[in-house]
């Protein structure tokens, strides 16, 4: 199965022991190759949307279709296969602390059974893309925040995903590193990868001049092809 279009159809998510829906009847589509920013203040439902996309949560109502995958109906055994087709970048990096930069990137390939030859060929290329080829044997604790995030980007590209979801990738970074990461995402998008950038960084969103979907208290309040951060 392969990811093509992303179709969010009337999705509502209510967490257990909560009366307030985290998402309410959200509906939008993303075409292959698009760069979409999903913005909103804290508690607007951005992170919930990311969790739904990577099947960490299932929608209470509605459908999330990632190509042929229906996230609401996916079996537990299929989740790893889905996640290998989606590159995910988190605000808190989520690197394996006891593995080097090289090993962190390689892990994504090892997990899906890639051969050692393939790994030895691909990982150095990925590290070169993110400009970390000379830090391959460092551990995450020996890297700056910006460098750690670049490792995460390299890892997320290991499977050549059709979709890259970045959840507040610049949240823990200074302005310079944030700009660098954003440029990297744009570069990845130029190669045909669909990018969903979830952020509340107004400057970045406004500088991108790309499609912007705005969430507010779980509702989709705006969807502009060339948008701005309006909340």
């Amino acid at each position, binding site marked *: 199965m392969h990811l093509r279009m992303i179709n969010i159809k009337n999705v509502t998510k209510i967490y257990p022991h909560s009366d307030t829906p985290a998402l309410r009847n959200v509906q939008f589509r993303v075409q292959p190759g698009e760069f979409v920013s999903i913005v909103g203040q804290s508690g607007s439902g951005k992170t919930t949307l990311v969790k739904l996309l*990577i099947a*960490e949560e299932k929608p209470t109502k509605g459908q999330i279709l990632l190509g042929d995958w229906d996230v609401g109906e996916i079996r537990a*055994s299929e989740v*790893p*296969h889905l*996640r*290998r087709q989606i590159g*995910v970048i988190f605000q808190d990096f*989520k*690197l*394996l*602390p*006891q*593995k080097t930069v090289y090993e962190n990137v390689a*892990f*994504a390939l*090892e*997990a*899906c*059974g890639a*051969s*050692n030859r393939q790994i030895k060929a691909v990982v150095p290329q990925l590290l070169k893309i993110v400009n970390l080829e000379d830090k391959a044997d460092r551990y995450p604790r020996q890297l700056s925040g910006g460098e750690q995030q670049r490792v995460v980007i390299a*890892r997320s590209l290991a*499977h050549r995903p059709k979709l890259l979801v970045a959840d507040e990738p610049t949240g823990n970074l200074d302005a310079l590193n944030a700009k660098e990461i954003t440029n990297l995402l744009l570069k990845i998008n130029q190669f045909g990868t669909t990018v969903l950038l979830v952020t509340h960084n107004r400057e970045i969103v406004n500088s991108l001049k790309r499609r912007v979907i705005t969430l507010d208290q779980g509702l989709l309040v705006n969807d502009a092809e060339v948008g701005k951060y309006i909340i």
Partner: protein
Amino acid sequence: MTKFFRIVKFAWQSLGRNLWLTIMTVVVLSVTLFSVNVLLSLNVVTGAVAKSLENHIDVSVYVKADATDDQKNSLRSYLVGLPQTADVKTVSPDDALAAFRSRHADDPKVLKALDEVGDNPLGATYVVTARSLDQYPAIITALDHPAYRDLIDRTENDFQDYSTLIARVQEIRDRASGFGIALLAIFAALAMIIMVNVVRVAIFTHKDEIGIMKLVGANGSFIRGPYLVESVILSFLALIIASAGVAAGVYFGSPYLTSFLGTDSGLVAFFVGNASLIAATEFVSLVLLTGIASSYAVGRYMKV
């Protein structure tokens, strides 16, 4: 096969890169295993002491001095032929007299009385050893045979003393054995609880990593595998260390124990004779325990 080798590689990497956690886990597992072996040793020693006590029990049959050789031989044959008898030793009248003089060396009145008697008043003695402790009552009963009871120079109290003594020794042995087994069972259960929780704590420190691996697309077996391999490696290391401790303890401690108890403690023979079985049982038990604990703990943190 590649997946298996990767899993083993990850396990070794994890153990090596979390060295202090590895050392602490191995230490706790080793100490727990060692303490179970100490309790096992106590059981062995208790059994050896009880057995030694049994071996010192025998029935001495004092034959009257005026019994003829034919009568004495007949009695001896009768005693040897009893199904409960393991061995019959003969103490001649002269040896019996010498032993009597030796026992009463500090009692001049007895020795003087003996001298006044002149001739050796003692007859032969047959020292009967039973096949097991609970067979002495049958031997004592058998001595009350019409053909032989008049040949035996005995008083009523001798047999009652023997019966009482035998019953007491049996009671001590049975209680010690039961207590030892109960204590071993309790300690083994405690050891299991300790080991399971040590592993759970170790896995807890990897909680975040497990979640990350799942998010990156690793499946259940690829995440669980290294921790299961770690369980095997940790169990093996703990077994080696505990075994070395037990071997050293038995080797150096056994002579002192033998000297203290006055009899062979039985430890060396027990451990040498059962080394493979003990090691295999402990290793398999440890692997199962730590493996199950590890698998359960990882499963909890894989719900991402």
